[in-house]
């Protein structure tokens, strides 16, 4: 209902003001010798901007502050001692009044004070909504009035509209900055709250990961040693790279140096299909196919390989990363100047010697950058490890045993009812911060190397 009223108000403002701007500016130009600086369309848009923007600002402010205004209004209606209680009790009292006012009723008989507050709140709610709507409409009308007074042949309506457009574009491009800022601030603040419970040294250098459940802990906060998780992450990433780098690099080399154009046209898109498959599908694949296969293989040769282990997760993650490495290396090999290759071939080197001794050394920095990007992706990968790594956060060197990673622990700690007050859930943010810092470092390094490499051959 409210949303409908607001939408209707904005729509009416928009049409009326556009129409006024358009027709008035047209009338100015009609049948006279005066020429408008801008076309009527721009006058219309300008008038619409002047009318709608103030209304939107008012509505936005109300949306932001209505909660706190309402709360303080209700609190003012209730007896003074209510406000001196604990914050959650105050909140409970406020929600009680709101529930009474909404007509759904509450458990227990409302006290006279509550009933009075509720009826006051109900009328306040109506009045404030009407007030806000009226204010928005009045401001909109004012803006429209001002805009139509300004309409004149010399008015640079187009330039003014273009300034608005430019501002809107700038606002959009700051979203990316705000996102990064939001990530850093939210991770930092919640991680700091976590470190108020747990000593950072115990977190970064602890070797035991055992966050007990809050309900079972009698004052014990659990142990939060990062090292087992970090080791699991590193081990799985290494296994993934051992699978992905040789296969990805060799496929890229073969496709770009040896393969027939037609073969390349068929094979390359098929390999790239691997990049588009959601990670949850890889996780399921690891759990249902690769894990049992590996443990069967282990039985055959007499090694104990668990179905969900670092090995399973690492191999499947490697498969996921193959197209990433192969397409990046393909690009990079393509950037090595042809003259170097031709020179080597002309001196009598075989094709593989040319590739190994000339092309690869020249492309090495780029390939290293690509591998670093792939590592950062492997570190941040979640669903494969959630399903296939076995979730056993113990410091072990054997890759055939189950393990756990930073990402798995984030999911485990924050899924369920997160209350953002206990170290059990706040630790997710400390882990997230670690993860973010690691990937950021790898990315910056990789992008730097790749850029340097590009400059070398430009």
């Amino acid at each position, binding site marked *: 209902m409210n949303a409908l009223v607001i939408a209707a108000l904005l729509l009416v403002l928009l049409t009326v003001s556009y129409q006024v701007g358009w027709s008035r500016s047209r009338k100015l130009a009609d049948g006279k010798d005066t020429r408008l600086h801008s076309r009527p369309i721009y006058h219309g848009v300008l008038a619409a901007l002047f009318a709608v923007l103030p209304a939107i600002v008012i509505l936005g402010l109300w949306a932001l502050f209505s909660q706190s205004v309402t709360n303080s209004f209700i609190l003012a209606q209730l007896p003074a001692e209510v406000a001196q209680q604990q914050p959650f009790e105050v909140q409970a009292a406020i929600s009680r009044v709101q529930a009474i006012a909404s007509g759904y009723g509450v458990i227990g008989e409302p006290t006279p004070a509550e009933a009075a507050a509720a009826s006051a709140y109900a009328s306040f709610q109506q009045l404030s909504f009407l007030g806000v709507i009226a204010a928005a409409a009045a401001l909109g009308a004012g803006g429209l009035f001002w805009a139509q007074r300004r309409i004149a042949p010399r008015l640079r309506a187009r330039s003014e509209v273009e300034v608005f457009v430019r501002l809107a574009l700038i606002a959009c491009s700051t979203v990316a900055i705000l996102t990064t800022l939001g990530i850093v601030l939210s991770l930092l603040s919640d991680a700091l709250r976590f470190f108020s419970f747990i000593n950072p040294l115990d977190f970064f250098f602890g070797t035991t990961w055992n966050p007990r459940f809050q309900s079972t802990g009698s004052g014990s906060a659990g142990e939060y040693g990062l090292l087992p998780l970090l080791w699991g992450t590193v081990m799985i990433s290494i296994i993934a790279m051992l699978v992905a780098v040789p296969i990805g690099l060799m496929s890229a080399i073969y496709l770009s140096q040896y393969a027939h154009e037609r073969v390349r046209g068929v094979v390359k898109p098929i390999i790239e299909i691997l990049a588009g498959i959601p990670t949850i599908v890889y996780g399921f*694949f690891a759990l249902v196919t690769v894990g049992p296969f590996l443990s069967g293989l282990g039985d055959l040769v007499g090694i104990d390989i668990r179905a969900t282990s670092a090995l399973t997760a690492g191999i499947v993650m490697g498969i996921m990363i193959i197209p990433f490495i192969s397409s990046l290396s393909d690009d990079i090999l393509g950037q090595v100047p042809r003259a170097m290759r031709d020179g080597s071939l002309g001196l009598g080197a075989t094709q*593989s010697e040319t590739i190994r001794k000339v092309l690869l050394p020249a492309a090495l920095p780029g390939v290293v950058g690509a591998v670093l990007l792939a590592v950062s992706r492997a570190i941040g990968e979640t669903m494969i490890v959630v399903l296939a790594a076995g979730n056993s956060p113990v410091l072990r060197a054997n890759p055939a045993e189950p393990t756990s990673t930073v990402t798995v622990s984030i999911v485990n700690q924050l899924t369920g009812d997160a209350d953002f007050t206990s170290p059990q859930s706040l630790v997710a943010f400390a882990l997230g911060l670690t993860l973010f810092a690691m990937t950021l470092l790898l990315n910056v390094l990789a992008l730097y190397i790749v850029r340097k490499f590009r400059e070398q051959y430009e």
Partner: protein
Amino acid sequence: MTDTVLPGASAGAQNRDQVRKSLTRRHRNEALFRWAGILSIAAALGFVAILFGMILSKGLPSFWQSTVHVEAYFDPELIEGGPRPELADFPSQADYQEAVNKWQRAVTLSNWNRIVETALRAEAPDFEIESRDLLELVNSAARFQLRDMYFANSDVLGQTVPVSILASANTDNWLKGTINRDAPDDRQQLAATTRALADQFEANGTISFDFAWHIFTNVDSRSAPATAGLAGAFMGSLYMMIVVIVLAVPIGVASAVYLEEFAPKNRLTDLIEVNINNLAAVPSIVFGLLGAAVFINYLGLPRSAPLVGGLVLTLMTLPTIIIATRAALRAVPPSLRQAALGLGASHNQTVFHHVLPMTYPGVLTATIIGVAQALGETAPLLLIGMSAFIANIPAGPLDSATALPVQIYLWQGNENRNFFEARTSAAIIVLLGLMLLLNAIAIFLRSRLEKRA
């Protein structure tokens, strides 16, 4: 003369000899290298084949589910509540509604299991089986199915109507052989008599494998796993994708236009640029943490809502769209801009009337790639509570919902492993099918747009 030539000639001959000797080794290395390349390509293609083979072989049978076809007799002795109240008999709408509610309550309390049982027994009159074991044959929501049929049309009272009831998940496993049929009785989910009856029904055609439309129309179900479907998760994903398209495309295109066409080269724009490149490589789970901390904890938006999921995925998709749009803008020839400016168009007009329309195919492709990526994302959604069990189809973006990839995650963890392994693969087929469809649309639209341009 000969003195000076001879040592050289002998050295040359020696060299040639050496080269010839080493040639075999070099050619062997060449062949080895080439084979290494072929093998890695074979490995990569093999992984694709195994992955798809596994999913299709596991998932496709799940689309045909064992269905029991019986004749249900709506026994007036068993169904309580009498005839449905008629509107004409009541003084007001409210009285009528009350009477209908009362009637529905009475009908619900009738012994619908008996009706299911009778219908099943009629198909195998001589078969001795306990009622409890008999009811295990069909899914536990069968009684609600019959009741809802009766609600929809109460004229069936006293009639015999052909009904198709889904067999239970365990029956389906048994008939498809997804559990070990030779396992001893204590390892089987179903009683021996139930299994024998299922086999008999399959033989006489009472049970057939019908296409499981309910996978697309039903929501998730815990009490009756055989009836579990994807409709709720699909709607959740749909709402999220709408949010992503509505927010990410305009914002992404606008920032790309600003950075590529308007922005002065200074510290701030450099910062934005580095930023976007880094955001593209931030792990998705970090976006989930952002969503949990900012959208849910700070802004107080509801947990499990597709709106929040959509916002998180929007932030994740933005860099993809921005980077691709910028590449498309860079590919527009400068002569176009110069021509427009030369004819007196303003900078804005040049960009929005002439340059931007040229990039539509690129923007479209980027959008679809971004949406496909967002459609398959799971990890951030787990952190904002979208992994809850939701038993109804969300009616709006603020209702609790789950998403297709999260549904896959939930199903793979279900206790009824034998049944849900197949059902999960079926869900994966649906998800991959949707992604394929998106990409096909992108290719089709792109070719049309490019033809026009």
